[in-house]
C-alpha cells in the first residue's frame, strides 16, 4: 500500500468478500473470433457472490467483447459460460437479464424527452403498472442511496443522475451480477463517492459486480480482485489492494508507463497567445448551456486545463473557440494578437491555432474515410495537401508521419478511421494537430476512454508542445489528467469559468468543490483557490 496518491480517504473499504462465497459466474476458454482476429482468446474467469471484480486492459484488449458475451450481445466462437455452476447459453441480452445479469452502459441509452419512470418502463417491457413502478423506483432508489424522482424528465437530469437511472433500471431486475462499464468516467469525485457507497451496499447483499475502469486508483481502492487482459488474453490476476496504480498499469500495458515529465516549469514571462475576453454566447438550443462572460489568457509555454462536470458548457466553449459557432464580438477571442471572434475555423487555423474536439468519430474524424483523407479534414489549407483546389499527395505523408510518431496501431497502411480502436484513433487525431506545431492548441477530453499507455503518450505530447512555446488549453473531466498536465486550472460550471489557479497550489478537493458549483457566486470562484 505504498501508493496512497491523492485520495485522502483511500481506505480498506474493499472489505474482503468471504472466500467461501460460491462462484457465481465462470467462463472457461471463452473465445471470440472476428475473422482471423481473436478479440478474446481462451479467457478463463470467475467471479464470486459479493465480489467487486475489476476487468483491466488497454483499449482493444478485449474487455468490451468479453462482457458483451456475458451479456448476450455477442455469441462466443468457442468456450463455455457457467452460471451458478450450470453451463448456459446466453443468446441475447433478454436471456442474460432473465438469468440475473444486468449491465450499466458507459454511454447512456435513455430517451431525453421521457420521464425517468417511462424510460425504466420501456426496459421492463410492461410487466409493472406505471403507478406501482414509480413507487418501486422511489423505494429502490432510496434504499440504495440513489435519490431519484421518477417523474422528472431525463433531459433535466445531470449526468450523474442519468447514471443513477441506468443503475436503478438495472437493480429493478434484481440481478445477481452487474456489469459496469466505466461508471465513474462522467461523475464528479463527490458523485463517484456516492456510487461507491451504493456498490458496497450491493456487495453486502451478495451481488457481484464486474467493474471496468481505466481509473486505477479507484480499482485499487474498490475492487477485491482484478483480471487483466492484453491482446485478448488473460495476462494476470491479482488483488488490487496489494498493487499500486503504476504496477497495475504495467500489467495492462506490459511495460512501464511513463509519468509525464514536466521538463521545467512554465515561464510566466511568455506572451499571451490565446485570450478570451468577456466571451459570451447564447444557448444554441433547448439543451444547450449559454456561455457567460468568460475571461481567460493562456501564455505560450503553459498548459491551462478547464475542469468541470460534463454538460456545463464544455462543448459550447469548444465550438466557440474552434469557430464552429463564430462569435458576434470579434474581440472576444484573440489568437496571437489577432481578433478572431468572427473568424471561421479555417481562418483561425491559418493563424496557427489547432483544435481537437471531444468526439473522435463523426467530429474529429469521418468514420468512412481513410486516415490520409482524414488528414485533409483539418489540413487542407496547406500547400502540399491541397493546391489550386486539387488534392495533392501530401496528406498521405502526413498520415504516415503521425502514425509513426504517435505509434498508431492499425491493420493495414491506410485504413478507414472507424476500423481503429478508440485509443489509436485518439492518438491519430491529436497527432494530426500536433504535427502542425500549432501556436495554440485547444483540445477537449484528450484521453477520454483511452488506455493508460496511449494516455501517457498523448499527455506527454501536450506538455512537450507547450514547453516548445505553444499555448495549450485542455478541456477535461478527468482530474487525474488535469493534475498531470496542467500548469493552471480553471473550472467551468453552468457556462461560467472560475479564475484559473496554479495547479501546484490547489488540491483535488478544491477543484472538486468548484466542479459541483459550490462557491460559485461570482467572487467565490477565486476564494476556493
Amino acid at each position: 500500500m505504498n501508493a496512497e496518491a491523492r485520495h485522502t480517504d483511500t481506505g480498506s473499504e474493499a472489505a474482503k468478500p468471504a472466500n467461501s462465497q460460491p462462484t457465481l459466474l465462470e467462463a472457461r476458454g471463452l473465445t471470440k473470433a472476428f475473422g482471423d482476429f481473436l478479440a478474446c482468446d481462451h479467457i478463463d474467469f470467475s467471479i464470486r457472490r459479493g465480489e467487486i471484480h475489476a476487468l483491466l486492459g488497454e483499449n482493444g484488449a478485449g474487455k468490451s467483447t468479453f462482457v458483451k458475451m456475458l451479456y448476450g450481445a455477442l455469441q462466443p466462437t468457442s468456450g463455455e459460460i457457467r452460471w451458478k455452476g450450470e453451463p448456459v447459453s446466453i443468446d441475447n441480452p433478454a436471456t442474460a437479464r432473465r438469468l440475473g445479469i444486468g449491465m450499466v452502459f458507459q454511454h447512456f441509452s435513455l430517451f431525453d424527452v421521457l420521464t425517468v419512470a417511462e424510460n425504466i418502463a420501456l426496459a421492463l417491457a410492461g410487466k409493472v403498472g406505471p403507478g406501482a413502478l414509480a413507487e418501486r423506483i422511489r423505494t429502490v432508489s432510496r434504499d440504495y442511496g440513489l435519490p431519484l424522482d421518477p417523474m422528472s424528465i431525463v433531459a433535466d437530469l445531470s449526468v450523474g443522475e442519468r447514471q443513477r437511472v441506468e443503475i436503478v433500471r438495472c437493480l429493478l431486475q434484481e440481478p445477481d451480477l452487474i456489469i459496469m462499464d466505466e461508471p465513474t468516467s462522467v461523475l464528479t469525485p463527490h458523485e463517484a463517492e456516492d456510487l461507491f457507497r451504493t456498490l458496497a451496499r450491493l456487495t453486502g447483499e451478495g451481488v457481484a459486480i464486474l467493474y471496468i475502469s481505466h481509473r486505477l486508483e479507484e480499482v485499487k481502492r474498490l475492487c477485491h480482485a482484478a483480471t487483466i487482459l492484453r491482446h485478448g488474453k488473460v495476462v494476470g490476476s491479482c488483488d488490487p489492494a496489494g498493487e499500486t496504480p503504476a504496477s497495475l498499469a504495467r500489467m495492462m500495458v506490459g511495460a512501464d508507463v511513463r509519468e509525464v515529465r514536466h521538463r521545467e516549469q512554465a515561464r510566466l514571462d511568455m506572451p499571451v497567445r490565446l485570450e478570451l475576453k468577456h466571451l459570451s454566447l447564447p444557448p444554441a438550443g433547448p439543451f444547450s448551456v449559454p456561455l457567460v462572460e468568460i475571461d481567460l489568457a493562456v501564455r505560450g509555454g503553459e498548459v491551462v486545463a478547464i475542469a468541470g462536470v460534463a454538460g456545463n458548457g464544455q462543448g459550447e466553449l469548444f465550438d466557440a473557440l474552434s469557430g464552429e459557432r463564430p462569435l458576434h464580438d470579434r474581440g472576444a477571442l484573440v489568437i496571437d494578437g489577432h481578433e478572431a471572434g468572427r473568424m471561421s475555423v479555417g481562418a483561425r487555423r491559418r493563424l496557427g491555432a489547432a483544435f481537437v474536439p471531444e468526439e473522435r468519430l463523426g467530429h474529429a474524424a469521418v468514420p468512412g474515410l481513410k486516415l490520409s483523407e482524414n488528414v485533409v479534414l483539418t489540413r487542407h489549407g496547406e500547400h502540399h495537401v491541397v493546391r489550386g483546389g486539387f488534392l495533392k499527395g501530401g496528406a498521405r505523408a502526413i498520415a504516415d508521419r503521425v502514425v509513426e510518431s504517435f505509434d498508431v496501431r492499425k491493420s493495414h497502411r491506410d485504413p478507414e478511421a472507424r476500423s481503429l480502436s478508440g485509443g489509436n484513433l485518439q492518438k491519430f487525431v491529436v497527432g494530426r494537430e500536433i504535427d502542425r506545431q500549432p501556436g495554440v492548441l485547444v483540445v477537449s477530453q484528450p484521453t477520454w476512454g483511452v488506455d493508460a499507455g496511449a494516455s501517457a503518450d498523448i499527455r506527454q505530447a501536450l506538455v512537450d508542445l507547450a514547453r516548445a512555446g505553444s499555448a495549450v488549453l485542455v478541456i477535461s473531466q478527468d482530474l487525474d489528467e488535469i493534475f498531470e498536465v496542467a500548469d493552471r486550472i480553471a473550472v467551468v460550471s453552468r457556462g461560467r469559468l472560475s479564475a484559473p489557479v496554479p495547479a501546484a497550489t490547489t488540491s483535488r478537493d478544491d477543484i472538486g468543490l468548484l466542479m459541483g458549483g459550490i462557491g460559485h457566486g461570482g467572487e467565490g470562484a477565486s476564494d476556493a483557490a
Partner: protein
Amino acid sequence: MRLELVRRPEQSRRMAMLSPLLAIALTLVSGAILFAALGHDPVRALGVYFIEPLTTSWSVQELLVKATPLVMIAVGLAICYLSNNWNIGAEGQFTFGAIAGSGVALSLNSWDSGLLLPLMLVAGILGGMAWAAIPAFLKTRFNTNEILTSLMLVYVAQLLLDWLVRGPWRDPGGYNFPESEVFSDAATMPLLIAGSRLHIGAVFAVLAVVVAAIMLGATLKGFEIRVLGQAPKAGSFAGFSRTRLTVFAFLLSGGLAGLAGISEVSGTIGQLRPTISPGYGFAAIIVAFLGRLNPIGILVAGLLLALSYLGGEAAQVSLGISDKITKVFQGMLLIYVLACDTFILYRPRLVRANPTGEAAHGRA
C-alpha cells in the same frame, strides 16, 4: 435459426463491386418468375426483354439516345446524394429546363444563327437550376424536407408544361394538337450519326461523367461533398459550409437535369409536347444508386436502365405485355440494389436456434 447482420470493421470493396451485380441477378430471377406467372416462357421472355434490343444497330443507337438523359441527370443526383441532399425532383428540373430552353427556341424560331442553340442550352441549364433552387432555398432557410418539396415541384413543372402546350405555346398550324411548333434547324441539336436519333447530347453526358469523376476524386470540392455527406459535424469542423454545399449540389444537379431536358426536346423530340419524358428523372435515381454514386458506374448503369426501356417496348410488341413492365423492372432493380448495399458494411451470419424468441427485446 435466424439471420443476423454483423458490422464489418471497414467497408467491403469486393461487396461494393458485387452488390449491383447481385441486384441485377436477383432482378432477372424475379423477372423470370413474373413472366412464368404471366404464362410466358421465362427464358424467351427475358431474351426478348434484355437481349433482342442489343441485336440491331438501330436499337443500340436508340439505347444510347435513352441513356443520354439518364446519365446526365444521374451524375448530378449522385453529387446531391453524396452530400446528403435528397433531390427527388430531377424530373421537374428536367421539365422546367426543357420549358426554359424551348421558350428561347420558340420565341426566336426564325432566327437562323449558330448562337441560337447555345442560348437554348444555357436557358435550359438556368431553368433547371432555378427549379432546383427552390427546394435548396427552402431547406437552407426554413429547414424543410427537400424530398417532399423537390418531389412536389415535379408535378408543378409537368402541369405548367401541359398548360403551355395546350395554351399559349400551341402550334397555330397544328390542327389543335397539344404540341408546340416544330423547332427550326438552328434550334435542333446536331446529330452524331446521320440518319439516327443520336445527337450531341450524348457527348455532354460523357463530359459530365468525366468532369464529375475528376471533381469527386481529385479536388477539395469533391472531398467536401463526401465529408459533409457522411459526417456533417466533421465537415463544419473542417470549415466547410453545409448551407453553401446544399445550394451547390442542388444547382449542379438541377443544371444537369435542365440540360438533359432541353437536349431531349431539341435533339430527340424536336418540339414540346405534354409528355417529354418517360420518367427519366426518376429512373436516374436508380441509375445513380446502381452506379454506386460513382460517375463511371453511372455510365454503365445508365445503359442498363436504357435497356429496360427498350426491353419494355419489345415486350409490349412481341409478347403483348403492358409496358408497365418497364417500371416493375426498374422498381425491382432499385429495391435489390439498396438491399444488397447493406452487405457492404454488414456481413450476414446464421445464428443457431433461439428458443426464447425474445431477441427483439435485446439491447445490443
